[in-house]
């Protein structure tokens, strides 16, 4: 499985994503610059957190126009796995790959803390190794993670089973329906505010996010089982 970690001006969790792949999977991983126009040959695409373009207009609003985002759309079409974390999730929302939008946290403050999440479904490539209803510790660190969508979209998300993670306990940012992460209808694109790449070893306080990476590797192996043997 080849992994691409996208790099926009102002990305700052790109290193963390790279390290998470390197350390938990040991599979090939490369940084891909925002001006690249192709993601051919990549099986997993990580859209990292940070402050792309300083988040100066709206989080993710400028990054969605980077040439590499057109390549992401092509990759999604061919079924590549895409995971957007934090600012990466915001970019996926702005680019329309996932529905909804972000608002400032209700506290109006940046919040960085360990966070318990509830896993809503485990039939996805990214969550197969979790149990439905399992609570995992995956930290958050954001100022605008207050997910919003209108009633109709929420009904659609529920009907299509697109909610992947919800906050367990107190909702830290005021998101609609306690949403922490969602997927597209096909299930190959996941966006989430919490940082699984920061939760891959007990040394860092939690390994609750590690199975997202091992799950997707297994899904890729199953998909390519015949080819790879």
């Amino acid at each position, binding site marked *: 499985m080849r992994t691409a970690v996208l790099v926009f*001006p*102002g990305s*700052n*969790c790109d*290193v*963390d994503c790279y*390290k*998470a792949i390197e350390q938990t999977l040991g599979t090939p991983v490369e940084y891909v610059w925002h001006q690249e126009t192709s993601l051919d040959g990549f099986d997993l695409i990580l859209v990292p*957190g*940070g*402050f792309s*373009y*300083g*988040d*100066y207009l709206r989080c993710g609003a400028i990054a969605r126009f980077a040439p590499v985002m057109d390549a992401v759309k092509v990759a999604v079409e061919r079924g590549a796995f895409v995971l957007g974390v934090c600012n990466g999730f915001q970019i996926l929302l702005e680019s329309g790959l996932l529905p909804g939008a972000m608002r400032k946290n209700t506290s109006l*403050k*940046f*919040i*960085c*803390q360990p966070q318990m999440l509830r896993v809503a479904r485990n039939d996805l490539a990214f969550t197969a190794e979790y149990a439905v209803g399992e609570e995992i510790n995956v*930290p958050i*660190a954001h*100022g605008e993670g207050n997910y919003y969508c209108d009633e109709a979209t929420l009904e659609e998300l529920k009907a299509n089973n697109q909610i992947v993670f919800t906050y367990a306990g107190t909702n830290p940012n005021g998101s609609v329906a306690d949403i922490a992460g969602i997927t597209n209808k096909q299930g190959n694109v996941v966006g989430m505010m919490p*940082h699984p*790449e*920061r939760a*891959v070893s007990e*040394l*860092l306080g939690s390994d609750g996010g590690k199975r997202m990476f091992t799950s997707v590797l297994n899904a890729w192996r199953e998909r390519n089982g015949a080819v790879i043997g």
Partner: protein
Amino acid sequence: MAQSSVKSNAAKEPTAAQIAEQKIYRQMGVTEAEYELICGFLGRNPNYVEIGVFSVMWSEHCSYKNSKPVLRKFPVTGPRVLMGPGEGAGIVDIGDNQAVVFKIESHNHPSAIEPFQGAATGVGGIIRDIFSMGSRPIALMNSLRFGRLESERVKYLFEHVVSGIAGYGNCIGIPTVGGEVVFDEAYEGNPLVNAMCIGLINHDQIQRGVAKGVGNPVYYVGPATGRDGIHGATFASEELTAESEAKRPAVQVGDPFMEKLCLEACLELIASGNLVGIQDMGAAGLTCSSAEMAAKAGNGIELYLDEVPQRETGMTPYEMMLSESQERMLFVCTPEQEEAATAIFDRWGIICKKVGKVTDDGRLRLFHKGEQVADMPVQELTEACPTYNKPSKVPAYYEANASVDTTRYEEPADLQAVLEKLLDVPSIASKEWVYNQYDYMVRTGTVIGPGSDAAVVHVPGTRKALATSTDCNGRYVYLDPEMGGRIAVAEAARNVVCSGAEPLAITDNLNFGSPDKPEIFWQLTTSVDGMAEACRVLETPVIGGNVSLYNENTKGAIYPTPVIGMVGLIHDLDHITSQGFKAEGDAIFLIGETNVEFGGSEYQASIFNVVEGRPPVIDLAVEKTMQNALLGSIQAGLVQSAHDLSEGGLGVALAESCISGKRGASVSIESTLRADAVLYSESQSRVLVSTTQANAAAFAEAIGKAGVPIAQIGTVTGETLNVSINGASKIAAQVSKLQQIWKDAIPCRMA
């Protein structure tokens, strides 16, 4: 004097003759004697640009003219020191061809005027100091002081300083891993904002800010120059008055996004090897960076100011040279390196413009619109500022405190109520409200984040980690600068030892009032004596730092606050230790000796509402022995938790170890001292340790053998903190209740 041979472009600016006649240099902080010296160096009267450049280069902020004689007392060398004070930041060897780079810097005055931008640009400035050495910044720390959390103004300053630090650090993606926040009326109107940055570097990547190679081009990097922050360095060297409030334009605006790009591009440039020297444009911007780079190489520099990228129209040479627009760097490369160097900045979308060249005449020459507008000798700019041995006088309050009996306070009947009150003191209470706004995890190296004795950051690719702590008890330093100075260093070292680290070196931020007052100068020089002695005994040299004087307002000076930023090396990840109790049944030990020492204690201040007498006494040899013995035990795997005893003494330390560990403790102490002293005295060189029952005997033996007093005082158990002294119960409190008080103290006041 001869007529000036250089012309000024700006019609509105005073002429050299007018500057002399009207003594305009006085408004820039230049004294009569200094002006005469400058005229001598130039052989004529300086014009407006020249006097402006001299005034910032000779300000306290850039020249350390008032503090240099004092700073010479610090030990600055050691077997691990690769670079001491003088460059952007000091560097210490950590083995395997790796080194740690760190420095602390103040942004007190700007933060008092505009707290968000003042704090943000303080963080931005210290980060540039670190990466301009060629180092990758891996962690930020800070040390903050505010007035009491009662007035709306203090709350405003606190809230916005914290969000300014968060805004910058979070965006640039460097974790803010810890620090300290203290609230005391001594800082009302004069908040202290000290930011520290820590970076990693390989020995062969170390950069120096030198303009070597005559004829080499000089490049400007970063956003265009505006009129922001003109005379910021002079501003930081004055007392705050109503008049300075009106000088608001002196505050600059930070752009962490730009700095992130600049950081990545500069590190890429350094890794590529396509440069000769690089330096950031901090205080006094283009002036300071160009003069210092030339001086360090023994060369001169010519700058073509029309080439300087400008954000505003009609900027004069004076304005360009004195602007403190942020996120700018200056670098020198050879003509052969130019193409490769500029290509890197193009790729990152950053302005990179040739603005000058290195010369052999030792002069800083400025050209604008076809004319030479300034011509000054660089050595004189950077080195010739007179230093002042200020008069020093022992203050009356210090003499009077000698006879104050700090044991005369009547012991309160309810010592649990005292504990609850202390946990509610914002300086002691949980700082979660603060640090949850900081991204303390980005870069996934933070092993121990904010809220423990020291923060711990992993050194990627190794089994090593760095521990860091910022510390200073201003009350102790006020009551006895020498003892307080020693304690500040010792406590910072004790903090990193408690986390399992060998203390390496310190950076210091000397925050004081006006050195023009003999009593304040005495505080400064005496506290440095104490710090220097502690640095020698504890083998932690000073590798750099910052001085912030004139922290006074109409009500008086701040407490003398020499903040210590300590960095220690954890040799193996297995040695990392935190303060929380770990497991039911573990043995609890108190190491060190307790005396009745209430002077300057939180107990004295919060319960009896006075700050008087002499602070606790520290014996540095005892401290060193204790730290060595404790570190040896931690490295031998005997220790479960370790927590330094500081503000609030044993009582608060027990509560904090219980709260952090989410466990109770049963403690029983036999003592000849009064019970309030057992619980709340702030005697030095003490640590609260827990071990497994299996290791208890070995630990007690190891510490005892070193000659350090040790007593097993209890066990970790249940969910209640129970403390009895000589058989009488003094505290029986649910840990959850203590935690609630401790956690709610700041949010309740900020709601």
